[in-house]
């Protein structure tokens, strides 16, 4: 066996029988990118000299957080028994927020490597993706990674994997992405066990878009898997969902740098460039065909990614608003799932209401905005979509508590999810307590291996987006992992709680909560604000209210002394500088009615970091 192929196969004329399309399913930190790095090196597509860690993760944030946000596809030659094969590795996002993108990536493959850390075992999100892979009829190759680690317990986790997908524990391959041990055997196994793609070369061309990224120099790069027929350069293609047509300026494969080819044929994976500037014109899941010989039936299921979680993003420095707008416009080019519209808040000024696929998506977008565009942002408490029906039978969609209709409410429905929590069995009690406190109902519980349990809950998404994951992590010392998927809507007894400062509602603190929790929320926020807002020259009542009904109340007594007794003898300079500092502090105050509130107080109240207020 020679590990490196002498001559790679040419795209557009490769026999489908010599193609293997696979992906790697792994949890964050389980070593997917490192394994991919070794494959690139061992197959020779990246020279040792050009190698860098996490080669395929293009964004800084991907490298730092060890996660893959966007998919990638790399074509690697591999020779076995004198025959050269073309292996297409399709990198997939590992997180549940990107389930839709994951499922499209999986649909582009015939097999998947299930990669699990030999020291940690499988995690909830990996299970979710594994279900998706099995659902797509993919051939699974179970692999334990990081077997070079002292803490590795491959025997135990091989049993666990075998228990999950069937098969024998001794068939679970053991590798080290770090040292390269076992990686050649893995490539051989990919060739041997993953089925070759099938398709009709003479049929009307059909290619599935499994990723679409925006490149500042080249415009949108569309990644496709050819199902039937063939696509060639200069050809006029058509998107089946929109019927929009574009000319193919370049077509090729990543190896791993983009390499133009004479085309892509049945079973092949590659990219196309049409000069389009907006990813929304090249949507993940859509089917590409040709204008000349269009296909009649699109490939299975295209659905718009739907935002599930909403939050207001505001620049801490109000003058950064135009920069934020520009930054969102830019991110939108490469992230079709991001939606936003301008929003104004009394407390926070001008900002945007943004919709995200989930909490991680929110976190990543916020971090990219701060990092890539040098913005300081504050995010309001995440909210979900509520459908509110008023007594006069009007239905209002509410993604922001401020849209919650006044007057009589007939019903409110909220999105529900099926949540799976995987944790060591010792934590079951504390997890159940947490979930019940968040209106969860237990659907079932099962052992994964001998000492870990997977709990299934039916829960409102609104409960999960509100710091649930932080609590779960802290209650389980970081051991629990969480996965959830939407399962429709359900009516619930929900109310809007407003927080009033001297009778004026502070929009940023309004929240839609379950009736039974309204009081607790009101008490929490009024107490928090009492600690955070400095005393004013008059008494300031802080109230929590449902409509006109006050459910909690605190008050900040008037300040009586705001004077320095002494002028420090002749040191007038010091006194002046103190005053200038005080005035500087006042400038950063936001006015709610007559009440001066430091910006930090809003931020602290929203983030729950309650420190004692500064007096002046």
């Amino acid at each position, binding site marked *: 066996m020679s590990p490196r192929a002498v001559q790679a196969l040419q795209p557009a004329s490769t026999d489908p029988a010599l193609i293997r399309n696979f992906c790697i399913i792994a949890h964050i930190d389980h070593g997917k990118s490192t394994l991919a790095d070794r494959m690139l090196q061992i197959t020779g597509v990246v020279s040792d000299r050009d190698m860098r860690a996490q080669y395929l993760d293009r964004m800084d944030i991907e490298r730092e957080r060890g996660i893959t946000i966007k998919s990638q596809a790399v074509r690697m030659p591999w020779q076995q028994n004198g025959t050269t094969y073309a292996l297409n590795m399709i990198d997939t996002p590992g997180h549940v927020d990107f389930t839709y993108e994951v499922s499209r990536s999986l649909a582009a493959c015939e097999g998947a490597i299930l990669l699990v850390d030999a020291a940690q075992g499988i995690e909830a999100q990996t299970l979710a993706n594994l279900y998706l892979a099995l659902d797509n009829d993919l051939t699974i190759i179970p692999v334990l990674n990081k077997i070079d680690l002292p803490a590795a317990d491959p025997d135990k986790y091989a049993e666990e994997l075998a228990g999950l997908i069937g098969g024998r524990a001794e068939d679970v391959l053991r590798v080290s992405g770090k040292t390269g041990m076992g990686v050649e055997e893995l490539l051989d196994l990919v060739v041997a066990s993953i089925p070759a793609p099938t398709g009709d070369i003479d049929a009307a061309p059909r290619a599935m878009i499994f990723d679409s990224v925006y490149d500042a120099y080249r415009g949108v790069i569309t990644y496709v898997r050819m199902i039937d027929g063939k696509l060639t350069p200069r050809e006029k293609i058509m998107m089946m969902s929109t019927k929009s047509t574009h000319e193919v300026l370049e077509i090729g494969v990543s190896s791993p740098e983009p390499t133009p080819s004479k085309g892509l044929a049945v079973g092949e994976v590659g990219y196309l460039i049409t000069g389009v500037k907006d990813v929304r014109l090249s949507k993940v899941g859509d089917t590409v065909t040709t204008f000349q010989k269009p296909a009649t039936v699109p490939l299975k299921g295209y659905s718009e990614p739907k935002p599930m979680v909403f939050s207001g993003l505001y620049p801490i420095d109000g003058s950064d608003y135009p920069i934020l707008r520009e930054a969102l416009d830019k991110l939108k080019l490469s992230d079709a799932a991001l939606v936003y519209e301008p929003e104004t808040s009394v407390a926070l000024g001008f900002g945007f209401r943004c919709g995200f696929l989930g909490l991680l998506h929110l976190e990543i977008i916020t971090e990219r905005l701060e990092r890539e565009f040098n913005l300081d942002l504050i995010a309001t408490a995440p909210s979900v979509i509520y459908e509110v029906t008023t007594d006069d039978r009007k239905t209002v969609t509410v993604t922001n508590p401020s849209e919650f209709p006044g007057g009589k409410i007939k019903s409110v429905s909220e999105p529900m999810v099926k949540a799976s929590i995987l944790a060591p069995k010792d934590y079951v009690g504390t997890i159940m307590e947490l979930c019940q406190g968040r209106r969860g109902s237990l659907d079932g519980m099962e052992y994964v291996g001998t000492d870990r349990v997977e709990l299934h809950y039916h829960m409102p998404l609104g409960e999960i987006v509100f710091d649930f994951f932080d609590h779960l992590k802290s209650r389980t010392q970081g051991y629990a992992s969480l996965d959830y998927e939407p399962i429709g809507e359900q009516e619930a007894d929900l109310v809007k709680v407003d927080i009033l400062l001297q009778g004026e509602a502070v929009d940023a603190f309004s929240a839609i909560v379950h009736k039974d929790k309204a009081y607790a929320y009101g008490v929490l926020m009024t107490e928090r604000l009492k600690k955070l807002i400095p005393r004013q*020259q008059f008494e300031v009542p802080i109230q929590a209210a449902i409509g006109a009904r006050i459910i909690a109340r605190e008050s900040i*007594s008037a*300040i*009586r*002394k*705001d*004077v*320095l*007794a*002494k*002028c*420090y*003898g*002749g*040191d*007038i*300079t*010091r*006194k*002046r*500088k103190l*005053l*200038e500092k*005080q*005035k500087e502090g*006042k400038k950063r105050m936001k006015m709610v009615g007559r009440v001066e509130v430091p910006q930090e107080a809003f931020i602290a109240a929203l983030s729950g970091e309650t420190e004692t207020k500064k*007096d*002046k």
Partner: protein
Amino acid sequence: MGSALPLGDPAPLDGLLPPSAAERTHGHPFGVYLHVPFCRVRCGYCDFNTYTSSELRGVKQVDYAGQAVIEVGLAADVLERSGVPHRPVSTVFFGGGTPTLLPSSQLIQMLRAVDDAWGIAPGAEVTTEANPDSVDAQYLADLAAAGFTRVSFGMQSAVPHVLQTLDRTHDPERVPEVVRFARDAGLQVSVDLIYGTPGESLGDWERSLDSALAMEPDHLSAYALIVEQGTKLARQIRSGVYPEPDDDLEADMYELADARLSAARYEWYEVSNWARAASGPRAGGAAASGADALTGPATPTSEFRSRHNLAYWQGHDWWGIGPGAHSHIGGTRWWNVKHPAAYADRVLAGHSPAAGRETPDNESREIERVLLLARIRQGLPVATLAPDARQQVASLIADGLINGRAAIAGSIELTLRGRLLADAVVRRLT
């Protein structure tokens, strides 16, 4: 040791002032401050520039007066070379530290040097601060005979546990005695009180006020204790030995002081300062008030306000002699090196002891003017305020922070509530 010096521009070694200083003296009175940077013990709350014998790094107290006299000579020379018109000295103030730790002969030596350099104006106010336990009848009589007119005693409190928290070593019984000595010597008497000491109750404070009033001083200062960073008291509060100061209790204490002092016919003239009312109707009155009306020549029976301190607040000129002392001449401010050893090196070498200086721009000068004058009763004429600040006057009246009648008559006069919220008033006026 104590508070840090401000950051400013470098000061030249020859001390020469910028040309603007000579142009801007406006014929204001001229005062001299003499700093005596020594204390027997350092009080836990104090961040002034003062040193106990163990902190002096070889400098001798006994040599200090000679060094101060050198700076007085240098000052006269610098003013002359800088083209500042000659003015006799209207006020002299010895502060510290504890000036009375030095023998009276040395204080008198320094005062003589001031007189030699500029001449002391007839009717000038000459004050020294004094610790009740560092003076006796003879000492005070010597000062009075040499031209001192006023003594300010650091009484602080009449309550032993409060004095102890402040690290004050004097016996409270000693205070009435020394006040009598001072009066017998013909000196005006002021007492300083501090309120808001950790552990001090409203009752304790009332006792201190009563004791002070029983001595019938001519003038009384009541300062809220400020916990300054870097002091022993600040560390004690941080580590929980003492509680944080309570602003509400301090407000109660201020209100009590104002009530007691008013009843005893003392009138406030600055936020923390009260003077015995003149026996007849007050000269001037609201309408005639203005910055300069407050510092006319003293008539010993009718004027007990500290003219030296008023000069600071009114932006007049003064030269501060000694380590860490601050000066202001014609719009330029400077401050001397802090440590007595560094100070001695400079003056003995014939150099200016200034460590840094600044000439605030017009905007900063206006801020200083408002922040200082607003604290003085009717010290700030409404007509001198910038248009934006004048817009605030009506709302300040409505909020009960300034006296409406006085404002209509033309000047800013803080109400009792306004005095307690003076910084807020100043922020609105600047």
